[in-house]
C-alpha cells in the first residue's frame, strides 16, 4: 500500500475553518495543513483544544462548522465509506492511552489492525506484528502480552496505546502527547520511533506535545494553537525567532517566566 511513495508537500491532513464550541467556543476557525511525510508539531497552552482538534480528524468530535480532509477525502462530506477508509489509514495515540480495559494487551493491540487486514492474516502473523509493535515502544512482549491494562503502570499503558496505533501500519499518525509522563529513556524511545516511522516509512505525523524542545528538534514544521486559533505556523527556526508573545513564551524559559509575571500583576 505504502509502496507508491508520495512526495513531500502534498497536503495530507487539512483543517478548514474548524469551529467547535462546548460551553464556549474552543476552536474558532482553525485552518492548518499537514503535508505528506511531514513531521508536524502542534504546541499550545493546556486547555486550548489541541486534543479536540486531533479528534475532529477522525470525527470523534464533530465540529459545528468547517471540514477536515485526509488524503484528499472529506471526513464529514464524503460519506461513511470514506470515513471508514480514513480511520483505517490513521493511527491515533490517545492522551490517556484509552486501552480497552476488558481486553488483554495482545487483544488491545490486535484491535489496532484494520478488520480487512485481520481477515487475511494468520494468528501467528498477528502475534508477530503485536510482538514487533511492543518492541518498538520498548516493552518486553513476553511480560506484557497477556496482562490486562489494569495491571500496567501509566507509562506502560501509554506505550501499549502507541503500539495499538502503529500495529495497523497507518500512513498517518496522530500523537496526543505521546511522551508526557514517560521517563527520559522511554521518551527517547518514543521520539526515536516517531522519527523512524517518518524516515523509513514516510508516515505523516501530527504530534501534539508540551515538550517544545523535543518537538522543535524533531519536526519539520510546528504550529501554535492559542485562543481557538492558529497563531503561528512555520519551521522550527522561524518559531525560535518569532516575536509573537505566546510563541516567545513557549520558545524560551525566560520569556515564559516573564509572561507569568505579567499575569501575576494583572
Amino acid at each position, binding site marked *: 500500500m505504502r509502496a507508491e511513495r508520495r512526495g513531500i508537500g502534498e497536503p495530507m491532513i487539512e483543517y478548514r475553518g474548524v469551529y467547535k464550541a462546548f460551553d464556549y467556543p474552543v476552536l474558532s476557525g482553525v485552518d492548518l495543513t499537514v503535508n505528506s511525510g511531514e513531521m508536524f508539531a502542534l504546541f499550545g497552552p493546556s486547555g486550548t483544544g489541541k486534543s479536540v482538534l486531533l479528534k475532529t480528524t477522525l470525527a470523534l468530535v464533530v465540529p459545528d462548522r468547517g471540514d477536515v480532509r485526509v488524503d484528499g477525502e472529506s471526513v464529514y462530506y464524503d460519506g461513511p465509506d470514506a470515513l471508514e477508509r480514513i480511520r483505517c489509514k490513521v493511527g491515533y495515540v490517545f492522551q*490517556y492511552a484509552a486501552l*480497552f480495559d476488558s481486553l488483554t494487551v495482545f487483544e488491545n493491540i490486535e484491535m489496532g489492525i484494520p478488520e480487512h487486514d485481520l481477515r487475511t492474516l494468520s494468528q501467528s502473523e498477528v502475534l508477530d506484528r503485536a510482538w514487533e509493535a511492543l518492541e518498538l515502544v520498548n516493552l518486553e512482549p513476553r511480560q506484557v502480552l497477556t496482562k490486562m491494562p489494569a495491571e500496567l503502570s501509566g507509562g506502560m499503558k501509554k506505550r501499549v496505546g502507541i503500539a495499538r496505533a502503529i500495529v*495497523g501500519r497507518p500512513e498517518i499518525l496522530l500523537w496526543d502527547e505521546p511522551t508526557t509522563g514517560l521517563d527520559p529513556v522511554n521518551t527517547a524511545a518514543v521520539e526515536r520511533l516517531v522519527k523512524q516511522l517518518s524516515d523509513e516509512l514516510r508516515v505523516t505525523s501530527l504530534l501534539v506535545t508540551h515538550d517544545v524542545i523535543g518537538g522543535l528538534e524533531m519536526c519539520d514544521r510546528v504550529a501554535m494553537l492559542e485562543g481557538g486559533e492558529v497563531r503561528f505556523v512555520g519551521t522550527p527556526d522561524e518559531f525560535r525567532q518569532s516575536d509573537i508573545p505566546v510563541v516567545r513564551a513557549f520558545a524560551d524559559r525566560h520569556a515564559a517566566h516573564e509572561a507569568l509575571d505579567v499575569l501575576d500583576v494583572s
Partner: protein
Amino acid sequence: MTEPSSTSPLPRPLAGLLGRIGRTSLLVSEHAGQLGMLVVAVFMAVVRVRVSWRDVMRQIYVVGVQSIPIVLVTAGLAGIVTSQQGGYQFTGSIPLYVMGSVVTESVVLEMGPVLTAIVLVGRVGARITAELGTMKVSEQIDALYSVGRDPIEILAAPRILALIISMPVLVGMANLFAILAGMVSAQYTLGLGYETFFYGARLFWHSWDMFYSLLKSIAFGFAIPVIAVHMGLRTGGGAAGVGKQTTQSVMFMTLTILILDALFPPLFLQ
C-alpha cells in the same frame, strides 16, 4: 450573556415555567431521536451480518444464564406470596380450586414478565449503562472508532440481541417456577391438592395467555438493553457522571417497563 427572562415580556415565574417545558420537550425529543437512531443502527448491523455470534453467545451467558438464579428466587417468592394472600382472601367464601387460576393467571399475565424485567433492569440494565458509560468517559468508545470498529456493532448489538433472546426464556422459566412454588405453598398452607389446583388453573386458562406473556417478555427484553445502551453512550463527566447516568438509566428503564406493562391490557386483552 443576558438572562433570557430579563428581556422577556412575560412575568418571571411564567417565563421560567415555559422555559422549563420547552427544555424538557427538547430533551424528550432528543432522547426519542437518539433511541430511534440506535434501533435503526442495530437493525442495520444485524441485517448486514456485522454482529459476531460469538459475542452474542457470550452476552447470552452473562445476561441470560447468569440471571437464572435471581430470576427463579424472585419468581418463587412471588408465587408463594400470591398463593398465600389468595388463600387468606378466599378461604370460606369462594371454592378453593379458584386458587389454581388466581396464581397461574396473575403469574403468567403480570408477575412473571414484570418481576423478571425489574430484576433484569437492576442486574443487567444498570450493568450495561455503567459499562458503556465507563468506556465512554475513558475514551474507549473513541478508541474503538479510531481503529475503525463500530461500537454499535461490537458492543450495543450483541447486548441487545442477547437480552431479546434471553428474556422470553427467562420469563418462561419464571412463570413455571412461580406456579410450582404457588402450588406447593397452597398444598402446605391451605391443604389444596395438586389436582384441584390444576383443575382450577385449567378452568380459566386461555391459550392466548401464554402468548401474551411471551409478547410482554419480548417487549421488555427489547426496551431494557436499548435504553441501557443509549444512556451508557450518552455518559459524560467522569466517574461521577457514570454514577449519575446509571441511576437515571435505572429510573428510565423501570418507568418504561411499568408504562409498557400498563399499555398491554388495553392493547392485547380486549
